[in-house]
């Protein structure tokens, strides 16, 4: 109870700090904070899509491990390490806010202020843990145990959402967006946590190749990349469709998104299978 009181006292201070930015203040006054959070969700999503393409590209270098290691050595500097850690911010925000939206839209959780509060608290804790692990760089964990737990959590989350949403009359892509979203909340959060536990896990070609030869990891990554690309593609389409009238331009852009995601899926899957 005391803790809760302290949180509520901090909140007005944080909000007043944020409202010093004219653009935030403008929308907070005229549309309220959930509107700004929705915009944040979109921007975080687009940042993650950009990172996803860069990630697929760097992983494609694994076909010649020497090139991959050379690139990683080049990127092993404080600026890049900071950027890698900073990626935890949009990732945690997009994942936890996505969870909040699923709870609001499908599970009738209307205590939205509490949900936003917990989203921020859990997000900050997660970002700090990732930062701590990045500095530590030497945490050891069993690959199979870690990913078994993460995949199990993802499956449970997506099955709960599937069970809730599949029988509704919403459009199928919309339903799949929620199901894949629920699947990816534990997966992406776990993915980043795992990669920061030990420098070698995400940056050393031998360690990665050894892990990728594990059929369970291969299978998990296979599902992950399909879900991720669908989620990203439909997310981009949803944003585009809000601004472009139905017509040839929208159709062309939709086709472009589908083609880009399909090509990425092809290369991603080929890479997973080849390693």
């Amino acid at each position: 109870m005391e803790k809760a009181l302290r949180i509520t006292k901090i909140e007005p201070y944080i909000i007043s700090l944020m409202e010093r930015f004219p653009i935030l203040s403008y929308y907070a006054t005229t549309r309220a904070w959930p509107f700004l959070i929705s915009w944040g969700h979109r921007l975080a999503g687009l940042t993650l899509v950009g990172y996803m393409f860069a990630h697929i590209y760097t992983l494609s270098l694994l076909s010649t491990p020497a090139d991959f290691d050379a690139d990683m050595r080049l990127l092993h500097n404080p600026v890049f390490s900071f950027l890698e850690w900073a990626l935890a911010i949009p990732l945690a925000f997009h994942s936890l806010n996505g969870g909040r939206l699923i709870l609001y839209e499908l599970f009738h959780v209307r205590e939205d202020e509490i949900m936003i509060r917990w989203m921020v608290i859990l997000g900050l804790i997660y970002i700090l843990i990732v930062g701590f692990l990045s500095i530590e760089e030497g945490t050891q964990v069993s690959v199979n145990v870690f990913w078994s737990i993460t995949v199990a959590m993802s499956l449970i989350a997506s099955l709960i959402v599937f069970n809730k949403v599949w029988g509704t009359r919403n459009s199928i892509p919309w339903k799949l967006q929620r199901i894949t979203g629920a699947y990816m909340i534990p997966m992406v959060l776990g993915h980043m946590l795992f990669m920061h536990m030990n420098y070698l896990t995400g940056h050393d070609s031998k360690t990665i190749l050894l892990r990728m030869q594990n059929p369970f990891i291969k299978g998990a990554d296979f599902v992950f990349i399909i879900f991720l690309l669908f989620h990203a593609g439909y997310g981009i389409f949803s944003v585009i469709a809000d601004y472009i009238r139905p017509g040839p331009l929208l159709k062309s852009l939709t086709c472009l998104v589908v083609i880009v995601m399909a090509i990425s899926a092809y290369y991603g899957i080929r890479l997973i299978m080849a390693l």
Partner: protein
Amino acid sequence: MPKSYSITLDINRYDPDTRLSWIQTYQVEASGILRFVDVLRRINDEQDPTLAWSSSCEHAQCGSCGIILNGKPLLSCELLVKDAVGQFNTHRFKLRPLTIAPVLRDLVVDLEKAYDRVHKTKPYLIKPVPYQPEGDEYRISPKTLEIYSEATRCINCFCCATACISGYHHFLGPNVTLANMVRLMDPRERAKKERTDILYREDGVYRCHTSKACSFVCPKDIDVSHFLALGKEGRF
């Protein structure tokens, strides 16, 4: 004697004959208890009779006086000058027409066009339950009514549609979806299948992104996003 305020209004003007748009500034000395419709009327009377704006009931019941004031869609008949000064912490106000339909002149938008969207959802009982043979009224239990009575307060002022993050290219809009849902929840409506077909059409409820701006700006304090979420949840 209520406090007087010296306010500045920057109003978007549009002349359909010349198709020219410009921003015109007016200085007004206004009592704090004047509403913005009163301020606009005073401008007509004392400064500029050509300024066009719309209103009808001026009691927040008809929804025809919606404008965007300093970025917020609202009813100009509801907002007092002193409240606006307090809420926006300024004496300078920028007034724009709503963005949900073409502008006819200055602050007046083509509400007929805006209402075309409402008509798509058939805002009446499509197939009402038959009248009772004894001539009795159709009784709705308070428990049933409680679920949707809040949504019946909607006056189609289009403030929510203006504030919505989803825009209106691919989404019927919050108030239009709500107009359908009210009838869907009404036990007197028998055309449930037709109603759900409208709810889940391509530009239907799932195009809402739950930014909740609709609930925030609604002049009738309807939690619009709650009702829209009921649709997505699959209650119907």
